[in-house]
């Protein structure tokens, strides 16, 4: 029996084909990526239209626009750098979003602190993770926004966010079942609520941290290489 080969249909328009290849090579927050590709689409369409207006037939005009624009190999690294920073900011926002959950979680644990020997260490871990991640998130949002004009380029910042977010989500993943077990043993509802909040924090941060790790990996895999456009 012959195997079934799945073939992805390539767009016929050179502009769309180029953008589809670029989209495949880039990773980052969907909104930021779509916005960048939309901007590029408009630029390519305008360039192709300008060539077509000077008398070049459309397919050749579109091909010429694509060639002037730069190859995927040339553009992906510079685009990915920006998308990696966008993803780091997205991850930092996800971490910041869990701050209120962690505070409530910590307060619930304090009220139930006498319920078992495991609680004091969990309380300290939670306080440390909560404080560290919120400080990291605030620092990243400030350092990659308007404040970045006054700071040296912090190349390792997305990496710090990726691994900081991973550490926070792992801590939450460990804390949640520990609290659920304590809640079952001590029959204390605040512990169960704290466990649910820890699980919710993990569910919020883990996908964003994973996406950030992927973007950081891609940024390191793609060395920046920009050459001059071809002579007409």
């Amino acid at each position, binding site marked *: 029996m012959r195997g079934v080969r799945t073939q992805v249909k390539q767009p016929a328009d050179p502009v769309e084909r180029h953008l589809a290849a670029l989209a495949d090579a880039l990773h980052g927050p969907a909104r930021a990526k779509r916005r960048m590709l939309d*901007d590029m689409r*408009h630029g390519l369409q305008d360039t192709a239209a300008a060539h077509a207006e000077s008398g070049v037939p459309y397919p050749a005009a579109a091909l010429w626009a694509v060639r002037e*624009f730069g190859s995927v190999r*040339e*553009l992906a690294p510079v685009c990915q750098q*920006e998308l990696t920073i966008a993803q780091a900011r997205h991850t930092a926002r996800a971490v910041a979003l869990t701050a209120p959950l962690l505070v409530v979680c910590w307060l619930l644990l304090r009220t139930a602190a006498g319920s078992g020997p495991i609680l004091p260490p969990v309380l300290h871990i939670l306080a440390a993770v909560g404080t560290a991640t919120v400080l990291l998130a605030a620092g990243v949002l400030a350092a990659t*926004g308007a404040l970045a*004009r006054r700071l040296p380029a912090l190349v390792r910042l997305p990496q710090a966010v990726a691994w900081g977010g991973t550490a926070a989500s792992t801590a939450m993943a460990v804390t949640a079942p520990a609290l659920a077990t304590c809640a079952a043993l001590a029959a204390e509802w605040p512990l169960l609520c704290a466990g649910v909040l820890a699980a919710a924090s993990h569910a919020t941060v883990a996908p964003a941290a994973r996406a950030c790790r992927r973007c950081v990996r891609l940024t390191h895999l793609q060395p920046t290489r920009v050459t001059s456009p071809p002579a007409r």
Partner: protein
Amino acid sequence: MKTDAVRGHLDGLLLAVLEPGPLHGYAIITAVKSRSSGALELRTGTIYPALNRLERLGLLRSSWQTTGERRRRCYELTDAGRTSLDGERAAWREFTAVIGAVLDPAGPHGSPA
């Protein structure tokens, strides 16, 4: 002029062509080409991540505008962008004066012997 030579100055070039008013991506590219009389060779795709970065840094702001039948994202300088452009110009003048004085001592930047 090759792309490698342009790369370090891309931010300044983009800020400079946006000084008179808002432009969309393709208009920015044609403005750079026109101001340099076509001497600057640039992979046009590289300006989009650069515009993105300048907007993130608060040097540009963008909005949708309709030009003809097309809707395009247009970029314009913010106050911080104008200040940054002034800084880029001052740094460029200082740089060319210093290098000019070394390369061409008899030229306008050269010191009298």
